[in-house]
């Protein structure tokens, strides 16, 4: 039972991060290798806001998410938009450079020390016993809830709302969408904003549960295989892929070798590459286009 509970908790963080890769990739065909660092930035925004408004920690949550959203929009406007029409590699390297820049800035602002926003907020992460003898903490339960909410909300948005449909259209063929009057820059900045907004959710949860330091961006890289296994252009694939990889990791830790957990996502990815190279739910044509 605890194994399943752990799987759900880990999967929810993976899902929240993988969603960001997918949304951005669909919109601008860019692999955002700074996703982890943008998440870290949101964590620091949260910490800064919690510390700045003692006594009102709950206000820091939406405020940090807004900052995170704006950071995504800003990244699109300043770094990604100018790269349109240029070699894709250059755009990916721009995101790598952004990651370095963000880590440098955070080091300058907060030093490399480990921080604990939850301790500053005054809240406690309490364990809750579940039926079957498993235990999950408040934050774990919130993570699972948020992952489900985000997936449902995004699914509804992309399938039902006109803006969502326009975003999908712009992702498929930006020039045509522009010809149809869709303000693609608005739509793309919105995609980046959504991506970092969701990463912000992950950051707040993760920093509250584990810690905050300039290196937590590496968990962004761990969520990357999740996005790939699910299919880089497929939101639907994120949930099963996140669950599968989290389960495999947990099984590896418990029954095989804890060390293997590091390699499991990549092993899953390799298997996926040879069976269905376009991912669980990805579009087959996608591979040709990259």
């Amino acid at each position, binding site marked *: 039972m605890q194994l399943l509970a752990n799987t759900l908790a880990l999967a929810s963080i993976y899902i929240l991060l993988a969603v960001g890769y997918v949304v951005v990739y669909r919109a601008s065909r860019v692999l955002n290798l700074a996703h982890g660092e943008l998440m870290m930035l949101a964590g620091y925004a949260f910490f800064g806001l919690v510390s700045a408004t003692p006594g009102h920690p709950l206000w820091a949550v939406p405020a940090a998410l807004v900052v995170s959203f704006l950071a995504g929009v800003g990244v699109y406007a300043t770094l990604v938009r100018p790269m349109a029409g240029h*070699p894709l*590699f250059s755009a990916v390297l721009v995101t*790598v450079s952004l990651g370095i820049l963000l880590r440098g800035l955070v080091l*300058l602002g907060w030093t490399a020390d480990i921080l604990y926003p939850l301790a500053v907020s005054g809240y406690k992460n309490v364990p809750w016993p579940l039926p079957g003898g498993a235990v999950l903490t408040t934050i774990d339960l919130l993570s699972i809830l948020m992952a489900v909410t985000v997936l449902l909300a995004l699914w509804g948005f992309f399938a039902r709302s006109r803006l969502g449909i326009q975003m999908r259209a712009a992702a498929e063929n930006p020039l045509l969408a522009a010809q149809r009057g869709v303000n693609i820059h608005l739509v793309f900045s919105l995609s980046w904003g959504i991506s970092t907004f969701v990463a912000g959710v992950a950051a707040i949860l993760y920093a509250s549960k584990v810690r905050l330091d300039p290196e937590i961006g590496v968990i962004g890289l761990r969520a990357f295989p999740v996005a790939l296994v699910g299919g880089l252009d497929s939101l639907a694939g994120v949930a099963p892929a996140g669950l599968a990889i989290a389960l495999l990791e947990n099984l590896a830790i418990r029954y095989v070798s804890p060390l293997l957990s590091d390699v499991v996502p990549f092993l899953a990815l390799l298997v996926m*590459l040879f069976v269905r190279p376009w991912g669980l739910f990805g579009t087959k044509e996608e591979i040709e286009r990259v």
Partner: protein
Amino acid sequence: MSRGTGSPYLKTTYPSDAALLGTPVRRFWLAVFGLAALGFPLVGTPVLMDLLCRTAVAVVGAHALNLVTGYAGQVSLGHAGLMAAGAFTAGILTEELGAPFWLALPAAVLVGALFGVVVGIPSLRLRGLYLALSTLALHFVILYLASEYQSGRGFATGLLVPRPKVGPWTLAGATAWYYALGGVATLTTLFCLNLARTRPGRAWMAIRDRDVAAASMGVNVAAWKVLAFVVSSALTAFGGGLWAYYLGFVSVEAFSFFLTVEYIAMVVIGGLGSVLGAILGATFVTVLPYAVDAIVNLVPVPDRVHTHLFAVKFAAFGLLMAVFLILEPRGLVSVWSRVRTYFDLWPFRYHPLKG
């Protein structure tokens, strides 16, 4: 040579296209550059010499990556892994068997070529991003093997690699290394130039631009793709071996994924698919952090905030890279080609319309 840069230098005969050194003017400048390079140790400080030596090693690695990614269009994220394979082959042979460098380096090349076959085969089935990820998996496998060896044999912090020796003579000292590595880098450059302008280069570029069309023109796509990986990996492993001998040690931590990113940055910043680009990119990426350091160090700051400067340097490096890529997404070679175009067309801005 470079694509999409709009160079008006369209060549009209095959000999002129295949010529290594086009014009007397180019020959003259190359000679000047060569003399300056030969004379550099007379004026270079130890740090500059070290930087140039490392640049020379990087040039070899960048050429290797450029062959497979720039010319053949197959993205490889296993570069650091392959360098590690070369470095560890050299290190282990020296440590375990006391092998001299003239045995250990060829062995590293051989191991690299073998790994080239291993990554080359998935390239027949996978493309683009997904191929890149399978090469990334190779990176993890190689590093896993290396770390098992390292900790299993009790070299917790890595292996020391002695200086190369031929008979009584040892390769030591900044000047000796400078000439040795500079020579190796020059030879590698010539090797790559020759590959690029002869049959393999043409075949790879055809595959890069449209593999189906290449196949219909009689290019054996599968064989050439695998060959691209074999040649590139062998050269990468060779670069790894050089790295080990020059720095005098080998350890798993030196070949993190970030090293791969650095090499990709070299070929992209230089300009994909250009031999000159690989050299320029390798120099740029190797020297930039130290240039940033030097510039930031010019700013007088009180002692107490001195350690914070390192965060500034770190951030400035990221910022500079990003700004450069945004301003010049097609790389240094494109800048070079624009400058030449400008002078070629002067006083016009572009070719007049024909007809």
